């Protein structure tokens, strides 16, 4: 296990180094201020200072976490309802079916009209992106649990909450995790758009601000940091997957 982990890390480091080499070559070839050398960018990143970075990264992370958390709670509730009760499934299925294909990013202006430019609409957008995916995957995940999985707990008199924690949630967790993994990319892109407006903090704002000031090294530094945020989030989902899906991989 440890050896495989080490190999994985080595591979990642090699790819990262490779990207930097290509970047450097491109910089040499272009020889233009719109593409600074990696060294300049890392120096600019260094000069930003930990406090500044932490503030912007922190704001972005906070928005993502809040959006994901709300989407998970709501999606879990609705998905569970639809997965466990045929009546609710019949009622809600057309709603989900009709709203699912609506490109949520197109709702950005609407959300901003209704909820202003503040935190609410930023978190709401991320939530909207994730919500429908979570609902659908939870519903299908719950439906896919064989009814007999509940038998022993039912026969010893388990209540609904005990069945939820011991069977439904762990049974649907793998689909939930893969949905989060897939939608996280979209959520991060949307975060970028929402952070262009009405905020002084966050990675989106930081990148756009540097761009408008024509401070290209800082702009690239921002892009690098933003990517790092995404990478850390993916790593987190992988970690959760490793912890909770052990039973499948043993």
């Amino acid at each position, binding site marked *: 296990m440890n050896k495989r982990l080490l190999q994985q890390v080595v591979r990642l480091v090699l790819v990262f180094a490779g990207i930097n080499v290509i970047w450097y070559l491109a910089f040499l070839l272009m020889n233009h201020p719109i593409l600074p050398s990696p060294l300049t960018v890392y120096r600019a990143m260094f000069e930003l200072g930990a406090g500044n970075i932490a503030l912007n990264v922190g704001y972005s992370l906070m928005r993502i976490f809040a959006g994901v958390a709300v989407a998970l709670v709501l999606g879990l509730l609705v998905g569970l309802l639809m997965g466990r009760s045929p009546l609710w499934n019949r009622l809600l299925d057309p709603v989900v079916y009709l709203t699912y294909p609506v490109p949520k990013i197109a709702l950005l202006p609407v959300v901003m009209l209704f909820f202003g430019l503040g935190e609410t609409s930023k978190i709401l957008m991320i939530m909207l992106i994730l919500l429908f995916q979570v609902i659908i995957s939870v519903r299908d995940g719950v439906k896919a649990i064989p009814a*007999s*999985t509940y*038998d*022993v*707990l*039912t*026969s*010893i*008199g*388990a209540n609904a909450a*005990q069945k939820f924690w*011991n*069977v439904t949630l*762990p*049974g649907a*967790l793998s689909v939930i995790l893969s949905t989060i993994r897939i939608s996280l990319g979209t959520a991060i892109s949307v975060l970028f758009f929402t952070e262009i407006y009405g905020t002084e903090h966050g990675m989106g704002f930081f990148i756009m601000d540097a761009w408008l000031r024509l401070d290209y090294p800082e702009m690239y530094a921002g892009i690098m940091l933003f990517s790092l945020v995404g990478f850390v989030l993916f790593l987190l989902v992988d970690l959760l997957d490793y912890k*909770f899906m*052990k*039973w*499948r991989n*043993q």
Partner: protein
Amino acid sequence: MSSSKTNVNSSGLCVKDLQVEYNNGQPALGKVNFILPEHGIYTVIGPSGSGKSTLLRAVAGLLPDYAGQLLFNGKAVQDKETLIGLVPQNYGLLPWKTVRANIRTALRIARPAISDKQEVESRIQRWLTSMGISELAGRYPLSLSGGQQQRVAIARAFAIMPTILLLDEPFSALDAITREALQVLFLEHWLAHPVTALFVTHDVEEAILLGQQIIILPASKEETPDIVDNRAVFGMKHEDKRSSEDFFEQTKRIRKVMREKW
């Protein structure tokens, strides 16, 4: 103590005119009548599809719909006070929990009164050890063989000390030697703590070795099940049973019923 007449008021598990149909309208279990006295053990045999599992599922309260009555000591079986331990045919282990956690979960739900963690863990350990699977405690069910999963399911059912124990072919996935060892172990445990038990099996010998009475379900849902009194063999010392005359007679009698009704 005649078992042919079903009196609703008697003590023990009373199954009266039980009939089950699943959603498709086909009968899954014909009319079944018997009284299993408290602290008694009956075995159930029958051909595949005769409704053995259905009978257990009805008693376990897993069927929303059935005709007839299911009473334990005069009260509905589904009553909160009657704790039911089930060993399902598919073992019923939660794949996302380790062996130990599977038993712990059942114990926590069935016996919330045992709040002492140490007590819970030692109970789990005791049952795993007696089933000979203590080294599997940290493994997940998907990585276990069928026989190992079966023993975990049995350990779990024993650990909660149920009022009624329902076993659906609990030894079917075991090799002959392990099977015989577990039959002995099971019987010893049952003699020490005689829990009211229904034991489903495919195996005629097992039915004779472990049941005070043997319920033989017919292939046809129209016919009534035969109930064979087996107290003579059951009363013997376990190691003497197989070689006894009674055992031989009993085997012949049951095979005859099987030839006629299966």
